[in-house]
């Protein structure tokens, strides 16, 4: 068949042409040791090997022609002519095809494996979801059938509560995992404070550790920059997850040590670090149940949980560590873990963060004394170093009694410190009792800073009432300590001197003083006037009611109300003011000012609509404190 022939001829021609076009020549020489070198290479040989002639002359001919078909013709004992032939690449094409086939096979296997993983994932998921769901359904049935047996019902409810909270954790983890894997999770770039982050983590995890009576400590190493840029929410999730696991898998009275430090460069030197990058180096070490070498290899795989009797009693979704790893990878970080079964585990995490720009230098009470009392030794050492670095003079005391003695002497000798830092290490007294006495002794303007790892929100009301001016969260960070110290001392001084009129410029505020005694009225008016506030006086409750009624709405910001007065007492006056049909009648702050200190009196003043109770005789510091609190 001519067509067939033609076609065949064409192919053959093509092959011949290809043969001609794809031939290259080399002349090689073999030295005494049998090693070959190239003496000559034509352009085609350069083209076919992809190397320049200079490179070819320095190369091993066997290696550079490895992918080509070569024929050699001996020129003499030491020299050969090598003909490089691409026409023979048909074999290579075949090889390529084989490679592609193999790749396809691999892809198929991978797809099958993925499918298997998906099935395993679903199977695990179903199991993990079904287990608590079974518990919930089963326990609900038991509770219904024993509805009159209180103890049984209560027991069932406890189990339902536990199972549903486990289920909720599982669902949350799966959602997180799915968000990460589908790429729907985005990382936020926001400025955050490492000090705040560490304090938050401490507040979240310490109570869990304390319930198990564990020795839980957070150490702060070298910190280069405290304000960083990154996704703080996810970072918190990672760290809480790791610490939470340590608490969970460490027994009662166990030990957990968490450490934060910063590095200028990638500790493994795998990645470049720019000048505006620091590496957060976090570690969490425990002496808990540890992990087997087999499990250690799978720890970051989803749904992996250690299968031993101790761990299996501990609930978990098995996704936590997978989420940690995925999140860290997204953040450019890494996690490592070492562990020995029965001895404990150590997790380390390194993450790069951009540093946030520094705005302004802090104003500090340079040259002044800072009294610190009841701080743990290591905090005192660190704190002392920072204060000295910044030109302050720290004085450290251990007990509450020493503190009161020192302050009494200092006050008498006019050498009061600029602030008192109060720790919580007082064996012999509650710290708030000490704060309350100091604030009586030194006045309410004297800054008392509470250094504590506890949750401030829980303590704030009682602490402020006792006279604590501010809270310095622990673990202690330099910028946080100095920032608050500066805020409470330098700015306070500025306010109390030149800027007092601005920051405590109460001239736009109107205060009503209801007091029948002339001398008391005079003293209180004098004290109030010093602050710039506009004082209007009323000699009895009836006059106070008239004055309020006649004033424009919102005119009075505060009312100090005596209780025992002629014509109309303070209770009645407060009630009448509160009962007025005007918008400010309900919200104007009324302070009962009286020596009547019975429980009933306090209750009566509250029932009459007054907001707080202020004991007489008038204490200027307390008066100022109320103004500051209400008008600022």
């Amino acid at each position, binding site marked *: 068949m001519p067509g067939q022939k033609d076609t065949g001829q064409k192919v053959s021609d093509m092959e011949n042409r290809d043969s001609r076009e794809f031939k290259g020549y080399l002349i090689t020489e073999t030295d005494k040791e049998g090693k070959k070198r190239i003496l000559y290479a034509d352009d085609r040989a350069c083209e076919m090997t992809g190397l320049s002639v200079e490179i070819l002359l320095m190369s091993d001919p066997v290696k550079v022609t490895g992918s080509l078909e070569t024929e050699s013709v001996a020129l003499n004992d030491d020299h050969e002519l090598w003909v490089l032939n691409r026409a023979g690449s048909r074999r290579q094409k075949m090889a390529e095809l084989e490679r592609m086939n193999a790749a396809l096979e691999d892809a198929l296997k991978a797809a099958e494996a993925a499918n298997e993983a998906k099935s395993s994932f679903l199977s695990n998921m179903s199991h993990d979801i079904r287990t608590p769901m079974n518990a919930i359904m089963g326990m609900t049935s038991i509770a219904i059938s024993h509805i009159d047996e209180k*103890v049984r019902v209560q027991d069932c409810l406890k189990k339902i509560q536990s199972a549903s909270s486990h289920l909720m954790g599982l669902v949350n983890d799966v959602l997180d995992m799915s968000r990460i894997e589908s790429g729907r999770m985005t990382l936020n770039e926001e400025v955050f404070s490492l000090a705040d982050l560490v304090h938050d983590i401490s507040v979240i995890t310490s109570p869990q550790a304390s319930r198990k009576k564990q020795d839980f400590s957070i150490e702060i190493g070298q910190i280069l920059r405290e304000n960083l840029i990154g996704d703080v929410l996810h970072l918190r999730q990672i760290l809480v997850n790791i610490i939470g696991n340590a608490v969970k898998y460490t027994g009662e009275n166990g030990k957990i040590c968490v450490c934060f430090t910063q590095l200028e460069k990638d500790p493994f030197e795998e990645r470049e670090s720019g000048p505006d990058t620091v590496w957060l180096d976090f570690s969490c070490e425990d002496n808990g149940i540890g992990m087997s070498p087999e499990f250690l290899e799978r720890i970051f795989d989803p749904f992996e949980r250690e299968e031993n009797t101790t761990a299996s009693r501990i609930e978990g979704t098995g996704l936590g560590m997978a989420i940690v790893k995925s999140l860290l990878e997204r953040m450019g970080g890494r996690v490592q873990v070492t562990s020995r079964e029965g001895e404990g585990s150590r997790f380390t995490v390194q993450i790069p963060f951009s540093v946030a720009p520094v705005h302004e230098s802090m104003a500090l009470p340079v040259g002044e004394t800072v009294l610190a009392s009841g701080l743990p030794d290591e905090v005192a050492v660190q704190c002392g170093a920072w204060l000295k670095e910044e030109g302050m003079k720290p004085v450290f005391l251990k007990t509450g009694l020493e503190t*009161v*003695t020192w302050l009494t002497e200092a006050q*008498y000798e006019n050498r009061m410190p600029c602030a008192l830092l109060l720790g919580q290490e007082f*064996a*012999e007294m509650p710290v708030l009792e*000490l704060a309350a006495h100091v604030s009586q002794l030194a006045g309410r303007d004297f800054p008392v800073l509470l250094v504590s790892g506890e949750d401030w929100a829980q303590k704030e009301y009682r602490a402020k009432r006792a006279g604590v001016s501010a809270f310095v969260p622990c673990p202690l960070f330099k910028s946080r300590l100095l920032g608050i110290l500066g805020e409470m001392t330098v700015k306070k001084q500025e306010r109390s001197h030149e800027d007092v009129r601005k920051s405590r410029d109460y001239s736009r505020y109107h205060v009503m003083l209801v007091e029948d005694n002339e001398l008391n009225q005079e003293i209180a008016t004098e004290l109030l006037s010093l602050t710039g506030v506009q004082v209007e006086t009323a000699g009895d409750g009836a006059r106070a009611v008239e004055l309020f009624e006649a004033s424009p709405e919102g005119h009075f910001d505060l009312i100090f109300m005596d209780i025992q007065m002629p014509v109309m007492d303070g209770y009645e006056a407060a009630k009448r003011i509160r009962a007025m049909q005007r918008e400010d009648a309900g919200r104007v702050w009324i302070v009962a000012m009286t020596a009547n200190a019975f429980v009933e009196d306090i209750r009566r003043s509250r029932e009459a609509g007054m907001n707080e109770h202020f004991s007489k*005789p008038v204490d200027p510091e307390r008066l100022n404190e109320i103004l500051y609190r209400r008008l600022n």
Partner: protein
Amino acid sequence: MQPYQEEYIANLREIAVLTAHRKPEENTFDEYEEHLRENRKKADALVKRNMELLRDELFPLLDHLFAADQAQLAGLYKFAGELLNAKEELDTGLFCQIHRALLSLARSKQDRSSMIRELYWLGIGMNSLCRMLAGLELSESGRFLSQMRLCFTEAAAYLKYFDEIDDTETRGYILRSRANMALGQFSRAGTKISLVKQTLEILQDQEYQQKEPALPWERFIYMTHQQMAASMSYSREDAMTAQEIEAVMESVYIVCERQIQEAARNHQFPPPRPVFYYFAVEYFCGMDSLDSLLTKIESLMDKADRQSTSGDSMYSMISLPAFYFQFLQQYPERIPEREEYIGELCQQIITYIISFPEKERNKSFFFSLRQLLYTFLETADGMTYREFLKKMMEVFAPEIYVNALVVGKAAAFFSAAIIAEEPDFFDDIAQIREITDSDKKRREILEFAEGCGLLHDVGKLSFMNLYSGTSRQWFEEEYEMAHLHTSVGGRLLKQRSSTSRYAAAALGHHFWYDGSRGYPEYYRRLEYPERQMTDIIGLVDWLENVTNTARLFVGVEKTFDEAVQEAIALEGKRFSPILTSWLKDVKFAGRLKQIFAEERQNAYRRFYENNHNQVKI
């Protein structure tokens, strides 16, 4: 003093007599009941009058303290001195209130001498309040102790300026404050001992003595040695270092030697206190065995004059047994061989304290009673702690006792109604759940309810000055302190087998059902299987309080119907909805009201009958 101040003090004394529930002298119960009613009416009128005196006279003066003249201030100072002094403790709360106001005045005037003096007296007042807290954990009493200690510390800090202060009185206050810094409980014996040691060094310093020869240095030093000697009880096991023990021993010898020598000069037996100190020192130093010490204490107690009300007899008859019991509680293996002796001793103690003349009951007497309350030892054949507590309430806190009986009966009535509908309502309690016989179970529940009612307020025995001795409403500080009666009660009951099952009711009866409020903060309702009974006690006690007794302390008084409505309004918050649903039943509420009235009368009758035929003191 001003006439109103004198009147206030006279009223205080009269109120104490009127509320003491003296043993009935009347022939019939009706007469007795009428007498009680009259007394209560008179006492209420006097309390009202006292409140008026404070509101109309004292508080205006405190209000206008800046304007007070020297005579008024001196009068105030004297008045405070009558309220609390070495002999009497008439009204410590008011004493503190006055000195706190005077301290504020001194601070604002920057009058150093007045400040030191007021800090000292406020510290003394706080110390007196803190004595009610003996036996409590430091975590609960710490805040009150700290307030006292900080006052003394601030006053003592002026020691540095001893030379600059030129009046003897202020210098005396500084030194006494310095010594008083070591008053009260400490978490470590070493802290207390080191404070006393430093004080002794200061007092023995010739330079100070020469600067102010007018001060009674020898007395100060002796009293400080007494304070050091009182630290002896810490000398157990590893609580103290060798140096600390040495310091304590030295003081013990100084104190005891003097008293024994004095007794020898007067050809008398040495007083029991130093003799006991001597014996105890020998034991703590390892020179004597515990058995030998116990035998020596027994011989001291046996020698006591049981008819006398002297300080020494009181010490031998109440304090020594308290120490004796404390040793035995620490070493219970010593109890079996002494069971019979302990049983007899308990009877002797009870006879002694109930026949102790009312007029002679002073601060030391009540302090010793509190010691006994904490260490009382119950044995299998002897008096149970429950019986002892009941007797204590009956004799020393009759109003609390009557309230306890009424609450117990009302709780039993409430419980009976509930189990009639829901027999296994109290099945959280294993002891009750295990009873299969329904009649027996019912009896057990009702008995348990009465027991919880009877003992729920035993903690108040530690705060008798606040409750039985009150003659006005409480100040906020006293109100907070009174809250501790639940912790004290819970702790006392928990430690003895005859009362441990009632501990939850004592601890949790002021805690809100929803956990949002109430006290003590550490009470966790769900952790106690007795919670349902505690809920019942909490509700009936509240009904009894707001209709009967709270008017005295916090000025709240409601009719029974008002109280029931308020309880219903607090359903699910303060009170269990299961219980308030019963109150909504008008018939049930009516019957409960009747129970309260009847049982109060029955309680008085029981009181009358129990005491009517007893030998008059």
